[in-house]
């Protein structure tokens, strides 16, 4: 259909406003608003057409997200974005494909989303990129012992798979310890790690038990005797590392101060309390939406074409939407915590951390 | 011919024998009264016979069949019914539903998820007749929990009538029944077909209905004889009856 001049374009944002991931949701939406302002020059319009954003809360529950997405699509939204959690993203993606609308997933990090269907894009990073960033901490992987310490479940297993492929592929010997996410005492596991004497430990952990886990690794002298790499989570979590923080090597998707470009400045100006890990995801999503509407109007096929292969500068630096599988190639960061504050060691450019291309499934 | 026999029935808690080597024979159609001081083990004996407690030693047989190891409901199916010393009815059901449930348990067909209970006229009519028999028909729609004590006792008898058991164990059916209602209830009890074992402290009632009387004392069977003989027994006089008021 030919775009009707002047008619607003409807965009639906389905993300966590309440529930366990509410603070990720907040970073996302603030980033999004800043990004929208920046990309439209403060007008909220593309080609003279207003962008009408409707927000819906999924409370981290896929059932609610699907309801909200169907509702928005039923009301004429051509673009759905958001998805704070992987579970939500994976269930909204098929809905987008079935209804032929564009879906730009947010902070959800699962690799399974990449290449899931033609209609699905992502505005954040994926787990594979974390693992690639972790690899950058060992200079010569061949012959090294690498141990993955992760929580049981899809997140943990996919991290183990990625490490085995990436670092194991480079010649290291990869083993893993998978632990229930809600374990209360991590001492036994920490002691298992110590006994294994690995050269590098990659920790993939998210959630409320992180503090206890780090404490156990520290007390059982794992941190002191080997290199431990993990992903740096949002600001609020930095203090939970306590004394252990300085003994860990961090890879980071984003932290306040990782970059200092125009976009970061303009984002920071619009976000209360400074940028955080998922601010760029929201910012990118807005940029991608503006691009899609600008080039495609109301035509989803044209939007897809406009996004595929598109490179743009954003908060993190240069981003590229890979044509084959819609992975978002982007920089990552090596960081250390000093007195609870992250300090940049090195920015990794997108090529160094690009995930392997997968075939588009649908 | 004896319908219910216990042989050396014993129940111990720790070292104490609550029921001590009790052997009783209840004959077909007989009315056997059980008396004994409080704590003699009468209710416990009933519990062993009806299967609510596991026996320590001894056997219970019903119409020649050994039922010692059976669960309460299996004994009930074989024709053993009982009432409780403390009234026990289904408080949240109406009086009528209480009795219908009992009738249905007797007649079978309880495991029928897709049939209408109300379509079974036989159950309903039988239940009504049981209620009429104990004089509770006017309370049929009341919730059993709201009945006064004496009415609950009558309902219990109705539940028993409904099951039409061959052997009935009545545990103090007259306790707490107002003087006015006693004769009525005695008539109901006399009208029971089947063999009855009844614990009761009202001696006049026992003497009126019982063919024989068993006396329990400290868990053991002290005597089991005709009413006249039992009343004349010096130990019974001393341990149980005491002086007249």
């Amino acid at each position, binding site marked *: 259909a030919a775009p009707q001049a002047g008619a607003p374009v409807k965009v639906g944002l389905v993300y966590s*406003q*309440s529930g366990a991931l509410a603070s990720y949701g907040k970073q996302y939406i603030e980033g999004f608003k800043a990004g929208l302002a920046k990309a439209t020059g403060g007008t909220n319009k593309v080609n003279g057409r207003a962008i009408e954003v409707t927000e*819906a*809360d999924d409370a981290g529950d*896929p*059932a*609610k997200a*699907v*309801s*909200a997405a*169907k*509702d*928005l699509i*039923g*009301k004429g939204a051509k673009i759905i974005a958001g998805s704070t959690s*992987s*579970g939500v993203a*994976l*269930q909204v993606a*098929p*809905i987008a494909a*079935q*209804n032929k609308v564009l879906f730009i997933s947010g902070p959800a990090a699962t690799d*399974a989303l990449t290449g899931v*269907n033609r209609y699905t894009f992502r505005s954040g990073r994926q787990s594979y990129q974390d693992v690639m960033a972790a690899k950058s901490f060992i200079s010569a992987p061949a012959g090294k012992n690498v141990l993955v310490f992760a929580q*049981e*479940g*899809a997140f943990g*297993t996919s991290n183990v798979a990625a490490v085995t492929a990436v670092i194991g592929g480079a010649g290291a010997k990869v083993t893993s310890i998978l632990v*229930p*996410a809600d374990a209360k005492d991590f001492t036994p596991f920490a002691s298992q790690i110590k006994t294994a004497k690995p050269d590098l430990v990659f920790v993939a952990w998210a959630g409320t038990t992180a503090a206890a886990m780090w404490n156990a690794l520290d007390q059982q002298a794992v941190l002191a005797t080997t290199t431990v790499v993990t992903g740096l989570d949002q600001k609020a979590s930095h203090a939970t590392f306590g004394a252990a923080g300085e003994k860990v090597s961090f890879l980071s998707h984003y932290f306040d101060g990782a970059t200092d470009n125009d976009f970061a400045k303009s984002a920071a100006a619009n976000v209360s309390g400074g940028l955080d890990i998922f601010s760029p995801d929201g910012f990118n999503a807005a940029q991608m939406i503006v691009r899609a509407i600008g080039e495609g109007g109301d035509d989803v096929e044209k939007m897809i074409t406009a996004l595929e292969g598109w490179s743009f500068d954003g908060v993190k630096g240069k981003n590229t939407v890979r044509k084959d599988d819609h992975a978002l190639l982007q920089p990552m960061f090596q960081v250390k915590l000093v007195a609870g504050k992250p300090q940049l060691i090195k920015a990794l450019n997108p090529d160094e951390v690009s995930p392997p291309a997968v075939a588009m499934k*649908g | 011919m004896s319908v219910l026999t216990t042989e050396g029935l014993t129940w111990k808690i720790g070292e104490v024998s609550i029921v001590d080597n009790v052997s009783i024979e209840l004959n077909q159609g007989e009315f056997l009264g059980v008396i004994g001081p409080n704590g003699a083990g009468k209710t416990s004996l009933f519990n062993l016979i*009806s299967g*609510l407690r596991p026996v320590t030693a001894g056997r219970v047989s019903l119409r020649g069949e050994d039922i010692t190891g059976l669960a*309460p*409901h299996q004994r*009930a199916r074989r024709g053993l019914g*009982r009432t409780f010393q403390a009234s*026990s009815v*289904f*408080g*949240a059901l109406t009086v009528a*539903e209480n009795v*219908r*449930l*009992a009738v*249905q*348990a*007797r007649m079978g*067909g*309880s*495991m*029928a*998820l*897709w049939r*209408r*209970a*109300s379509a079974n006229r036989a*159950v309903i009519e039988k239940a009504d007749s049981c209620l009429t028999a104990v004089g509770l028909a006017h309370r049929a729609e009341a919730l059993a929990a709201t009945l006064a004590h004496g009415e609950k006792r009558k309902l219990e008898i109705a539940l028993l009538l409904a*099951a039409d058991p061959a052997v009935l164990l009545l545990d103090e059916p007259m306790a707490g029944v107002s003087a006015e209602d006693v004769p009525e209830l005695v008539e109901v009890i006399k009208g029971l077909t089947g063999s009855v074992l009844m614990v009761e402290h009202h001696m006049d009632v026992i003497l009126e209905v019982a063919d024989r009387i068993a006396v329990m004392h400290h868990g053991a069977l002290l005597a089991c004889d005709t009413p006249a003989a039992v009343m004349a027994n010096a130990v019974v006089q001393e341990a149980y009856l005491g002086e007249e008021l």
Partner: protein
Amino acid sequence: MNALTRWWPVGAFLLLIAIPYNALTNAPGTLQLLALCLVFGGLAAGYDLLFGRTGLLSFGHALYFAIGVYVTAILVTEVGLPLAMLFALLAGTTVAAALGAIALRVKGIAFSMVTLAFAQVGAILVARNPGGLTGGEEGLPLSSGLPSFLIGVANTVNLYWLAVAYLTLVVVVLHRVAQSPTGRVFAGIRDDALRVDVLGLNPYRYKLVAFTLAGALAALGGAVYVLVVGGASTHVASSDLTLTLLIMVVLGGPGTRFGPVIGGILFTFLDHRLSQLGVTFDLPGPLAEPLFILGTLFILAVYFFPGGLATLGRRVTSRRTALSRSAP
């Protein structure tokens, strides 16, 4: 009065049928939400077979629901939808019968805890993603194997019909069961299982029947739910879900014919709409948390409608008959 009490369910049913046929309510978002509400209405009613009608407080009902959800989601790509739903039903029924046979050997709170524990194992297994089957905490989207009439926003109405069918089935089954001789035994067991035993019926068998039937209804509900939502997620196996069912039943009125259905529908509706409300009006602090409002509402309901919403009308009538009886 009598005519009203007799005919309102028919009226409500007609209303359900009419919903897709008018412009006001025939929107995908509305139908989707209503479909979810109806599924939970049916689930709550099935749970009430245990709680309200037989007096069994199970804390593990979510397990059988989750079996329905995951078996359908896993098998649909392999064997097609009808067979997948059939297997889900069979699996739920079998597991309910097997675990019920164990759990029912204990009574009271111990029974509640054993069911809770079994369901906890279910939740742990689902979260661990054994063999990559369940997708762990990321869930399992339904992306292929669905018949075309269930795909796409335009076909949401078919999901709605599916939910209506499920709810109707549950209500009819439970109604028949409640009126049946077995239903009478259930009521007896709820009151005093020992007494039922002495009457000559084995309470264990009847409890097991109730437990298995409730499990089967929950598994079927799971199979419908996964179609409506379009995927499975760990939440369906959590003990929170059972607690929510309990809340729905109590809100609506345990042991009543339509109370649990009403409770399930109302709770689900509020659960979905309240968060939207919080966003729209930018409500401060706790008021933006749906669970805060729902929890508070629930507490108030326990105080002010003991016996549930369904007994509101009845309490007025019972008072009237009571008065007229004591008059003479």
